[in-house]
């Protein structure tokens, strides 16, 4: 325990130099802005910084990149709340309740709730990172393909049961998402599956579909009332603070979301999407008023936001303990650091504790800086609501297409984004829920790969899924969530 504090003090010595504080600020601001734009996530943010870091001292470079990374986590949810366009996959859930709140004229409050929840999640995540890294990393190693498959199955069923209306439609949506995920070259055997045109060989990038389903579909929905503004009265726009009730209702979601997010973040390859969807499911089932979810429930915003930021701290555990990147962003960070001659990993802690702990301390500082950036940022942001729809909609479309191009630098994706927007619009008309589809598309590849890896390891026996205790626990939870939802809906026919 003493050594932790000693190390942390050493870290603060490094983190609190003026140069490093300045870079935390610049990185955080850049990250927030980049995170806000659809298609531009933390990975792009870190990538554009690589040339800037060439001349830097490696510690400063690492600190700056981390600031961009969690800056983008804060920023990703801004666009979800304001224009229903998640900046990143982990900001999808923020749309569920954040955007309805904005439509009701509480955009400022929604932004504040999300900023505070991100802050709490980030701080809690850092504390977990400092004290729990070793045991948690050991636990994560136990997590094999069977456990991973069962976790994904649980996340998928939990999302189906969340969606309003018929559970059968939820299953259809999930199936559609999984179908899209199987398009492309099969990594295991190299077989090409459902490739109608050559451009589909690499599969469908879920971020493209996400931009189509959320940003562009939202524009289509608004085509019917182009000349209206949001029905927001000018007075409430200005309020960017949280009401007492919002504070009270945020507290428990923070307590649940942060540890959940951190744990999911540590697991190899799970990531912010699962963390946020699971946190949303937890909040909805814990709530006494589940009917408020999807219409601007504070809990539905606060829980997932804290989970997301705690998750991004958790994702650093494999990078710091094993020197292997836990996410796409971490991979880009690793590449940039290697060019500077620094390799994160266990050796870094032993040989250069000032670098490793300097970064950890800077992230604590960074969280405070980002809260300080994001709370005032809400004031100009909410003014965007005053822009009339007929001007806002073309801008959203322009940003959506621009973001699409940045994802893969492929103009074929423009076809995908346009077609998926139409699909999203029509599915919405049929009341087929979008969240299970998007989640299934994101997780589909990993779900299938872990299913096949598990069976490969067990030499074909499905007992591997129920003989491993962690895996069994997730399967039981998946069944419980289904039974619970069936009971609540009560409409299902005994087939």
């Amino acid at each position, binding site marked *: 325990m003493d050594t932790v504090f000693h190390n942390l003090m050493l870290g603060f010595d490094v983190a609190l130099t003026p140069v490093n504080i300045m870079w935390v600020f610049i990185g955080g601001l850049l990250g927030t802005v980049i995170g806000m734009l659809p298609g531009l996530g933390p990975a792009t943010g870190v990538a554009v910084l690589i040339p800037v870091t060439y001349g830097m001292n490696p510690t400063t470079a690492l600190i700056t990149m981390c600031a961009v990374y969690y800056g983008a986590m804060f920023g990703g949810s801004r666009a979800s709340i304001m224009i229903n366009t998640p900046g990143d996959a982990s900001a999808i859930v923020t749309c569920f309740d954040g955007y309805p709140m904005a439509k009701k004229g509480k955009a400022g409050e929604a932004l504040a709730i999300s900023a505070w929840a991100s802050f709490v999640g980030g701080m809690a995540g850092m504390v977990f990172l400092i004290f729990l890294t070793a045991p948690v990393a050991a636990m994560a190693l136990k997590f094999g393909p069977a456990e991973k498959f069962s976790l994904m199955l649980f996340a998928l069923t939990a999302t189906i049961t969340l969606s309003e209306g018929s559970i059968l439609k939820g299953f259809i949506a999930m199936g559609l998402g999984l179908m899209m995920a199987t398009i492309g070259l099969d990594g295991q055997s*190299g077989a090409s599956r459902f490739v109608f045109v050559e451009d589909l*060989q690499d599969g469908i990038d879920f971020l493209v579909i996400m931009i189509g389903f959320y940003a562009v579909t939202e524009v289509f929905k608004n085509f019917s009332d182009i000349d209206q503004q949001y029905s927001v009265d000018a007075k409430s726009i200005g309020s960017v603070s949280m009401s007492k009730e919002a504070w009270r209702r945020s507290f428990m979601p923070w307590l649940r979301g942060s540890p959940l997010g951190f744990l999911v973040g540590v697991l190899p390859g799970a990531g912010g999407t699962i963390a946020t969807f699971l946190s949303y499911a937890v909040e909805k089932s814990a709530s006494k008023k589940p009917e408020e979810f999807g219409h601007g429930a504070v809990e539905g915003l606060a829980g997932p936001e804290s989970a997301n930021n705690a998750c991004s701290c958790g994702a650093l555990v494999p990078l710091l303990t094993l020197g292997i990147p836990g996410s796409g962003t971490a991979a880009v960070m690793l*590449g940039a650091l290697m060019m500077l001659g620094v390799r994160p990993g*266990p050796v870094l802690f032993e040989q250069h504790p000032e670098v490793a702990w300097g970064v950890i301390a800077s992230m604590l500082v960074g969280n405070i800086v980002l809260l300080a950036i994001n709370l005032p940022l809400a004031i100009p942001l909410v003014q965007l609501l005053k822009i009339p729809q007929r001007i806002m909609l073309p801008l959203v479309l322009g940003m959506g297409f621009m973001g699409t191009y940045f994802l893969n630098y492929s103009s074929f994706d423009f076809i995908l984004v346009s077609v998926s927007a139409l699909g999203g619009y029509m599915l919405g008309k049929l009341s087929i829920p979008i969240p299970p589809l998007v989640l299934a598309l994101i997780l589909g590849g990993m779900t299938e790969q872990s299913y096949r890896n598990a069976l490969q390891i067990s030499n074909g026996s499905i007992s591997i899924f129920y003989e491993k205790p962690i895996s069994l626990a997730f399967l039981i939870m998946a069944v419980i969530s289904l039974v619970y939802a069936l009971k609540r809906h009560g409409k299902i026919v005994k087939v």
Partner: protein
Amino acid sequence: MNKKWTLLSGLLASVVMVGSAGVAQAADWKPTKPIELIAPAGPGGGWDLLARSMQKALTEEKLVDQPVLVTNKPGGGGATGWNYLKSKSGQGEFLAMTSALILQNNLLGKSDLTFNSFYPVANLMTEWEVVAVKADAPWKDGKEFFEAMKKDPANMHIGVGPALGNNDHIQFLALSKLFGADPKAVKFVVYPNTAAEQIPALLGGHIKAITISLGETMEQVKAGKIRILGISSDKRIKELPNVATWKEQGVDFVYPHWRGVIAAPGLSPEQQKFWNDTIGKMVKTPTWKKAMQNLEWEEYYQDATAHAKFLADKNTQMKESLTAVGLIK
């Protein structure tokens, strides 16, 4: 639809080529617009880092007067980026990163493009391939490991990523054959996120060994968590003096995981000379040496003539080994 556009841009390019050819012959050729280095992959991977190292060395050492941009064109195991380069026929401002994958894609029938669809400028660097096991595993070298494999192939799962048919996979197939195990009986477990999943899976005991590039395992080796059974280099490497090469272990297997650079097809001799000279100068600069050192990559420079011969040899060699293990019929 796609074909039409390629045709159109090809036509356009040839017009430009005819136009610029006259100018180029008058004097030594020099790039006249921004230089694009194409990394046929996303940011963060080997090709991207190589392109960015080149960008850094070319600009900081003032070897070119035009700005140098890195363009990421991921997809198709490199094919997307190389197709893009091919569409720039005759234009000397476009270079792309390449590796053995360009040969493999072609041999495995995934792509029509191969090394002689382009002008190979140079080979730049290499990494070596290894087979690694957990530090407390009972096997000390390749022989012991493959003996165990022969006895019980069903319980010797090997982690490979991101997909079957890559360098790592081929190394293992070739080794099993050379050590006398049946390559077709090997149980591969595929990890699309490569080292990020392979190493935890190995440390967690879900698989018995991984076949992977040395660089990805360095941290764990230094931390004493995993052991390397053998390396595909021709001689022992500086950082790991205790690791024996496959050659020393009695199998004739040297297998570099090299990366080089190619230029668009249809370049004039002046354009070819410009890049051959410039890259030749670049690899001698301190900026370049430092970048290679930081990335823990071994320099593996071959000029255009040497590289072209190397590629032709490798292609024949690879065709044989892929046929031997049954990946091509």
